[in-house]
Every structure is written in structure tokens, then in C-alpha cells.
């Protein structure tokens, strides 16, 4: 009979060991699962503290027995290489696994099984779980803020128009392609501004005027992020080039700009833009609060963009500049055709990073009284009729923000893959 060497599993006794090991792990999993889902303790015959540790110990022994180098079994090798390299990693693996299993039933029952979504008032929420009725009732507010219900179509139409205009670049004719950058940097923002101004603000063409103070919810998040994104990128590019300029005036202006905006917190900038800034303006000059906030965030993020882009510019070998110059290209031609296309490609991850941070910074505009998605939540949770549902609201907002940000990061990966060329 084959002797079982308990301490040293190897290729010869792989069968015995892997089977015994899997059985042990299975037992430990069954124990945890039954504990978590059925609330029964299979090992109640063991003394107190051992009951808790039982699955961990059994699982560890099981994993230890399965740890065979080059077993020849693909699944086993994969397992051993990634989560079972030594006893410590095996312990971590088990702990994480058990925590997930333990956390699953309560969160599932809170979010789904014990949750309510029917009805349209707080009384409908009788269960112990989440009250999605709250989200349902407030959904329009979360999306459109205080914007009058009967005009929501105006926001929708404006967004569809702006998105459609954004895709124009894809369908442009070949001979117009060279104006693409011009379109996206100058023409598109202007058109988008006009669309949003005339449709959402209204005031002409028989559309009723709606104050920006009434705007809010997710649509405001989109509006603020959209304008900040498209303006801060070209501005950042200008300052990145400026900081590397040979002309001292331009260089030091750029450095001052970047260091100033990087040195102040966004929340102070927003306060300044809404409280202090109007004091410096002539009395008859009026600039909307929303516009001021967008300008403030744009200027702020442009400084970050500038530094990211400068990193890309610096990583290009000097030979690229030499080659472009030797072909007779001046500063602008060199940068537009040779330097920037390469540098911008390199900084896609960094720019995506900055943009994601920007989108997640937008809730800060709450401090100046503009209620975008997170701001609406804060308003809703203090509504006397709906007290006590902050959790549902924040989970809802997290999911929405996560979807937006994940989509953006996926898009940036796509761009990276699309523009990848070998060096």
C-alpha cells in the first residue's frame, strides 16, 4: 500500500492528495455556506472558539495537501500558482472567500429579498430591507433636479442632440477630416452651449425660461462634466506647451498658472467663484452661477491636465524634435503633426485619470447651492417625509457614478488600443 507522507505531497501521490485536499476544502466551504445561508452550525459539537476556526483549519490543510509543483493538471497548477503559493497566501485566499460568502446573504436580503419597491410613499416600506420606493418616487428629481416635470423632454432632447453632434466626427467626409480638431475644440463646444442654452434654459422660441438654480440631478452632473472636460483639455495642452516654451514670459505665466491652481483646494475655488468673484464684477454685469462654476472647475482641472500632458511631451526622445526641425517644420507644425500626436497617445491613461477625478469632483458644486446627483440626494434625505433612507440614496448614486466612470475608463482603454503603434 502506498504510504501517505502527510508533510510532502508530490507527483506520485498526487491523486490521493488532491482528492483528500478537495474533500477537506469542500467540507470547510459547506460549513461556512450552511452557517451563512441556513444559519445552522454543523460543528456545534466542537468547543466554542474551535467552531469558528474549524473551516479555516480544515481548508488550510486541504490547500496544503493540494500544493504540488508541476502536477501536470492544468487547473491545479493554475490554482497553485495564483492563490495557493504558500500557507500565508492560502490563508488569505480562504479568509477572503469566507468573508464574501458570509457577507452575501445579509446584503442580498437587504438589497433584494427583504426590499420594497412598490407603492409611492414611505408607508410602503414595511420590510427590514432597502426601500427602493424612495428611489422610485424621487427618480425624476435625481435625474432632473428641480426642473419642472413637464419640461423634462427639453433636457432629453438637448442631450440627444449634443451626443449626436459628438458623433459627427465619425461620419465626416475624408476631405474634411483635417478640420476635425477645429470642430471638436471650437465649433462643437459652441454648438453644444447654444443647444443647452436655448433648449434647457429656454426663454426664446416659445420655451419658458428655467433658472439654472432649478437645474439639478444627474443631468446637471452631465452638463458640468461635459463642459469642463471639453474645455480643460485644450487649455491644459496650451499650458503644457507654454511651460516648455523658450520664451520666458510665456513659460513663467504657465508655471504660475499651474502651480496656483494645483495649490488651492477645489472647494475654495468654488466658493470664490460664487461668493467673491461677483464682487469684483461691475454691477450691471451678470454671469450665471453655473457658468462661473464651470469656468472655475475648468481652470482648476486644466492645471492637472497640463502636467499630465507635459509628462507625455517630456517622454518623447529629442530625436523626434530634431527630425521635425530638420525637415523645416516650425514650432506649430512640429507640435501639431509630430509631437502632440505621439505625446497625447502616451498620456491617455493619465488624462483618463484626471477626467474621472473631474466627474467625481462635480458633487462639490453642492457647496455653492447647485444640486447635482449627490446634491439632490442630500436634499432628499432631509425631506421630512422621507427621513432615514440615506443608505439607499448613496448606493444608488454610487452605482450611477460607477457606471459612468467605468464606461469612461473602458473607452480610454479602447482609445489606447486603437492608437497603439510600435515604437
Amino acid at each position: 500500500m502506498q504510504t501517505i507522507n502527510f508533510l510532502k505531497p508530490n507527483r506520485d501521490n498526487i491523486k490521493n492528495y488532491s482528492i483528500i485536499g478537495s474533500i477537506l476544502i469542500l467540507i470547510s466551504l459547506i460549513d461556512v455556506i450552511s452557517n451563512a445561508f441556513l444559519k445552522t452550525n454543523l460543528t456545534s459539537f466542537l468547543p466554542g472558539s474551535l467552531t469558528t476556526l474549524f473551516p479555516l483549519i480544515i481548508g488550510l490543510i486541504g490547500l496544503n495537501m493540494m500544493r504540488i509543483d508541476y502536477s501536470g493538471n492544468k487547473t491545479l497548477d493554475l490554482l497553485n500558482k495564483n492563490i495557493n503559493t504558500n500557507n500565508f497566501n492560502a490563508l488569505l485566499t480562504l479568509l477572503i472567500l469566507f468573508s464574501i460568502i458570509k457577507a452575501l446573504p445579509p446584503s442580498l436580503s437587504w438589497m433584494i429579498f427583504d426590499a420594497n419597491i412598490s407603492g409611492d410613499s414611505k408607508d410602503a416600506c414595511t420590510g427590514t430591507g432597502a426601500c427602493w420606493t424612495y428611489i422610485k418616487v424621487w427618480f425624476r428629481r435625481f435625474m432632473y433636479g428641480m426642473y419642472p416635470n413637464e419640461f423634462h423632454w427639453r433636457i432629453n432632447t438637448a442631450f440627444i442632440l449634443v451626443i449626436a453632434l459628438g458623433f459627427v466626427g465619425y461620419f465626416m467626409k475624408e476631405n474634411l477630416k483635417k478640420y476635425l480638431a477645429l470642430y471638436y475644440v471650437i465649433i462643437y463646444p459652441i454648438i453644444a452651449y447654444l443647444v443647452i442654452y436655448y433648449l434647457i434654459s429656454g426663454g426664446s422660441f416659445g420655451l419658458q425660461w428655467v433658472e439654472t438654480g432649478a437645474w439639478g440631478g444627474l443631468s446637471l452632473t452631465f452638463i458640468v462634466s461635459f463642459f469642463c472636460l471639453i474645455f480643460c483639455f485644450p487649455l491644459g495642452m496650451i499650458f503644457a506647451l507654454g511651460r516648455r516654451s523658450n520664451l520666458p514670459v510665456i513659460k513663467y505665466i504657465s508655471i504660475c498658472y499651474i502651480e496656483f491652481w494645483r495649490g488651492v483646494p477645489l472647494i475654495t475655488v468654488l466658493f470664490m467663484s460664487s461668493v467673491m468673484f461677483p464682487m469684483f464684477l461691475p454691477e450691471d454685469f451678470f454671469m450665471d452661477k453655473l457658468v462661473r462654476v464651470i469656468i472655475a472647475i475648468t481652470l482648476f482641472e486644466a492645471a492637472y491636465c497640463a502636467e499630465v500632458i507635459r509628462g507625455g511631451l517630456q517622454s518623447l526622445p529629442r530625436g523626434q524634435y530634431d527630425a521635425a526641425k530638420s525637415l523645416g517644420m516650425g514650432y506649430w507644425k512640429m507640435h501639431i503633426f509630430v509631437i502632440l500626436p505621439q505625446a497625447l497617445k502616451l498620456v491617455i491613461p493619465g488624462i483618463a485619470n484626471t477626467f474621472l477625478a473631474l466627474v467625481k469632483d462635480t458633487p462639490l458644486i453642492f457647496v455653492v447651492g447647485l444640486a447635482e446627483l449627490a446634491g439632490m440626494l442630500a436634499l432628499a434625505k432631509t425631506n421630512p417625509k422621507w427621513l432615514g433612507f440615506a443608505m439607499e440614496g448613496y448606493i444608488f448614486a454610487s452605482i450611477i457614478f460607477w457606471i459612468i466612470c467605468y464606461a469612461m475608463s473602458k473607452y480610454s482603454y479602447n482609445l489606447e488600443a486603437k492608437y497603439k503603434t510600435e515604437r
Partner: protein
Amino acid sequence: MSDPIIKIQNMNKWFGDFQVLKNINLEVEANKKIVVCGPSGSGKSTLIRCINRLEEHQEGDIIVDGNELSEKTKDIEKIRAEVGMVFQQFNLFPHLSILDNCTLAPIWVKKMPKKEAQELALDQLKKVQIDDQANKFPGQLSGGQQQRCAIARALCMQPKIMLFDEPTSALDPEMIKEVLDAMVSLAKGGMTMIVVTHEMGFAKEVADEVIFMDEGMIIEKAETKEFFANPKSDRTKLFLSQIL
């Protein structure tokens, strides 16, 4: 004798406190081929980089095709467009195809119509025998092919002068030949060339004059045959004995 196309007089250049070029005097007539050799760090590359002002000199005059190069020179781009340059590291634009590498400058600097530029580029690529690679990207080509493309790219600007900065130093021996062949045929076409190289075979074959530099000075300047047969200075003799 015609007027020299490149004229350098009493030129001095410093990098910080370090003087790289000392009292350089050089005249190059049109259609002549000059080979510059010397040990590394002797200022050869810096010298030819001064000719299209990729490096700035501090003292003396450099006159290229009747234009003086100085801080006051306004249309430095115009002069550079007439002086092609080939680099040791090729310096192709990796984000553009081979064809686009060659047409970029003619289209945007010389305002040539796109079609004409493409025809010209294909023609030049054919001369260096890589017209079949026109739609590939630089990263997909071998070093020798990349360098030949760099030569074609410079020629697409139809320059009057070509500068070569150690064009074969980053290549392995088999590829050196294909690049040198391209340069030889260019030389036979009558181009004015200044070549920094260690390829003495190439110097013997095409050069009209050879310049030997050391420590930032021109030590010896002689006709090719004379240079190899009867080098005058001891430093040159030492160098030649090591390299040949």
C-alpha cells in the same frame, strides 16, 4: 571656382563651460562630398548639427546657401528645408506610415499637393528600394530599412545639401551595406553631402575631401587620396592606423 554653398568662419561653440568646437573654418562647394571622421566626443556631430542650426553656435559665422545663421535669422525653417538630415537613430515618426513620414513635410512645409507629394515619395522610396514597404509603420521595419526610409524622407524635401550624422552606427553589419549603397547612389547623383561616419570604405569610394577632427578642432583636411596615402599630422596617422 564657384562660391561655396556652406561657409564656416572662425566658429566657436560651448556647452556651458566646455568648448566643443574650436575655431572651425570650413568651405564646402556645391556637389562636393565631404566625409568627417574622428574619435567620439570630437565634435563631429555637433559641427554638422550647427549647419542646420539644431545647435546654436556662439561665435563666428555660418553661411548656408547665402544665408547667415544667427539668432537674427528669421526663416530658419526655410534654410532647414533646403538642408536634409539623416540621424544615427533614424528618428522616423512612429505614429505615421512610411509613406506619410515622407509626405508630411512636403505637404505641410512646401505646400505641395498631396498627390504630387505621394508620387515624389514613392519615387524616392523606390530609389532606396523600399517602395514595397510604403504602407507599413516604422516599428515594423528593420533598422536598415528604417534608415533608408529616413534618407528618402529627407530627399522628399528636395534639399540642396544632405547631412548624415553617423547613419550606419546603430545598424548591424549586414544592414550597413544597404544603407551605404543608397548613399553611394545618392552621391553619384551629384548631391552635396557632408557625412560623419567611421566607414572608411565609403569615404574612399565617394568622398572628395576628408576632414579629421579631434577635441573640437579640425586637425586635418585633405583630398581623399592624399588623406589616406599621406596623412600629415601624427594624430591622424594614429587614428588611421587604429581604424584601418
